């Protein structure tokens, strides 16, 4: 870290040689990549012409489609979920009515960890961080009145994803909509759970097996469904740099493709339905560069390492979400500005889908008003700024191209290191990405505390005696009691024989190498609960415990 020497008052550093950076604005990106005072033609990568093919052409650095947003806007997909299924269903209808173009479901902690609402571990957590879903009945209420063959639905669910996917398919069946007509995404990326988000049930290897079961089943039965959303978001939020986010996520992607290929699947049978999920952080150009570099690396890996033939297998399609970690509890209205700038970076980076965070998310789940401002921010970018008129408008910028190449290079170095370790599953078991991320997080915090990095309203420009007065969403504790009663009622009234038969078949299947999806689907149809099915997994595969290191 260099020390910044401010120029004497009244003197201006010579143009092009300005190295006296302003205190609190280090001459490096948020991830620590040094930034030169000036970029010129000599900073362009040597193979710039090969890199900058038109959008829609390999290596897709400039975007996946020739017209990009000129022909189709990104999907405005706002993540929502709280309280009971009925509450979230209301929020879904509200978002669609206000111009949201896709649904995105946030589940509560018990659901994410595979516990029913009445499990002792669920105490105090039901409906707090998302919607509580224990039964097929909850799932039906959640999507009541939503045309499942018209709207695409994303579900942020990982460890028990196979259960929620089966429930969604079963709800579709009850509405007469076959699985083949359902469009959407299930996150189902377990590797990043062990790396960053830490919501797991069983150990990494059987968990990845379940992910591959879903990828395989979706490839055969759900042509419009993204069977996985390989996620950098949580990796970044846990403290990774941009290059680490890119590297660990793409390494996870490589890991899943390897496992699918090992099972004998043709790469082009499933790769077109793999999707990604990036964080969009504060450093504007670094983020744009990250999106661009990611597309190029993935296209190259899929073509050269996995010999994919279908062009769609090479395309890194991504959802993006503005960085929750960048929001401040202090002066929360400032978050509206942060989110707008981050969202603009995602759009200039060429995202396919976007969630913008609400200003109040460091305090609680968003209120309706805050969620509306977040959605309006996307609409303002789409309809008022003119940035949608031409794809990848920053192409050819000396700085952006140099940064894109640099991030690509750093990410590839990490991917090589992970390959040398024996692949991402081994690296995760060794705790390698986890440690890299924790170190980056601590370094960043130290920079902030030394005042080397400014967070407006937190370590500079603070308000005196600030009282935070914005309204905060309250979750009624009665929701937990209601949810417990509902899951118990389902267990009491369901038909015993089909339930017991389907659970016995699932138990047997867990002891084999069979694809579990059909068995889970049968159990869900017989109204087995989420917790009961996950208990079968716990018994068959054991429960994961992370070594407690910091």
């Amino acid at each position: 870290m260099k020390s910044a020497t401010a120029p004497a008052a009244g003197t201006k550093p010579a143009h092009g040689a300005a190295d006296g950076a302003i205190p609190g604005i280090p001459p490096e990106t948020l991830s620590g990549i040094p930034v030169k005072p000036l970029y010129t033609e000599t900073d362009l990568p040597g193979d710039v012409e090969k890199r900058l093919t038109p959008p829609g052409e390999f290596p897709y650095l400039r975007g996946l489609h020739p017209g990009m947003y000129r022909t189709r806007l990104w999907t405005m997909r706002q993540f929502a979920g709280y309280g009971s299924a009925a509450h979230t269903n209301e929020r879904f209808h509200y978002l669609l009515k206000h111009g949201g173009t896709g649904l995105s479901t946030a589940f509560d902690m018990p659901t994410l960890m595979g516990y029913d609402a009445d499990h002792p571990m669920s105490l105090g957590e039901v409906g707090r961080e998302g919607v509580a879903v224990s039964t097929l009945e909850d799932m039906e209420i959640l999507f009541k009145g939503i045309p499942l063959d018209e709207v695409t639905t994303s579900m942020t669910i990982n460890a028990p994803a196979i259960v929620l996917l089966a429930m969604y398919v079963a709800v579709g069946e009850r509405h007469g909509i076959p699985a083949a007509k359902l469009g959407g995404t299930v996150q189902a990326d377990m590797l990043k759970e062990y790396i960053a988000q830490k919501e797991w049930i069983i150990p990494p290897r059987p968990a990845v097996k379940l992910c591959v079961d879903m990828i395989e089943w979706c490839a055969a039965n759900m042509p419009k469904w993204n069977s996985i959303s390989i996620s950098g978001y949580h990796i970044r939020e846990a403290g990774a740099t941009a290059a680490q986010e890119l590297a660990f996520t793409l390494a996870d992607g490589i890991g899943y493709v390897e496992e699918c290929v090992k099972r004998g699947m043709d790469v082009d049978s499933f790769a077109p339905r793999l999707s990604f999920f990036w964080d969009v952080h504060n450093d504007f150009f670094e983020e744009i560069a990250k999106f661009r570099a990611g597309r190029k690396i993935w296209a190259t890996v899929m073509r050269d390492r996995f010999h994919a033939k279908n062009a769609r297998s090479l395309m890194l399609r991504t959802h993006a979400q503005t960085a929750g970690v960048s929001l401040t509890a202090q002066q929360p209205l400032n978050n509206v500005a942060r989110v707008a700038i981050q969202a603009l970076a995602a759009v200039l980076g060429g995202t396919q889908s976007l969630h913008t965070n609400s200003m109040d998310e460091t305090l609680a789940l968003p209120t309706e008003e805050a969620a509306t401002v977040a959605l309006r921010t996307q609409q303002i970018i789409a309809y008022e700024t003119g940035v949608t008129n031409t794809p990848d408008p920053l192409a050819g910028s000396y700085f952006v191209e140099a940064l894109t190449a640099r991030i690509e290079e750093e990410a590839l170095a990490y991917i090589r290191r992970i390959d040398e370790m024996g692949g991402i599953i081994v690296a995760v078991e060794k705790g390698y990405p986890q440690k890299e991320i924790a170190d980056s997080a601590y370094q960043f915090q130290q920079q902030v505390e030394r005042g080397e990095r400014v967070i407006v309203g937190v370590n500079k420009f603070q308000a005196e005696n600030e009282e935070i007065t914005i309204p905060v969403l309250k979750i009624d504790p009665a929701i937990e009691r209601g949810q417990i009663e509902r899951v118990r009622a389902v267990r009491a009234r369901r038909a015993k024989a089909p339930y017991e038969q389907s659970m016995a078949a699932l138990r047997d299947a867990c002891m084999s190498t069979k694809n579990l999806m059909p068995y889970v689907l049968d159990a869900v149809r017989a109204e087995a609960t989420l917790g009961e099915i996950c208990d079968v997994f716990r018994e068959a595969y054991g429960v994961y415990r992370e070594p407690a290191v910091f």
Partner: protein
Amino acid sequence: MAKKIRVLVAKAGLDGHDRGAKVVASAMRDAGFEVIYTGLHQTPEMIVQAAVQEDVDAVALSILSGAHMTLFPRVLELMREKGLNDVLLTGGGIIPKEDMETLAKQGVGELFGPGTPTGAIIEYVRGWVAKHRSPAGSAT
């Protein structure tokens, strides 16, 4: 030599957000504390058991899942049952101010929200231990 302050950094319930807990644990270690980190998904019983076994001066509980009004009182109750009356229960996470005030009335120490410098947490724990743990900072 002054006795090192011993802190149990704990993650309770189902919440997996451990960035803050790990950053605070690292900062406390660098400030000369002895830090024990429980790892994720601990029950209040497991946490209090660890506090007894490790003979800590303070328990720092991190909760970002919204379950703080259930978990803090439960940990405090168990600490009292186990006779840990002179051990600080502090912590942080996404905790609205009025909830912090309610918990303070029940006997929970200061709670820290997003954006808190780690130095402020360290100073608070150090000050509390000097005042309440007797003989404070005694030679070993």
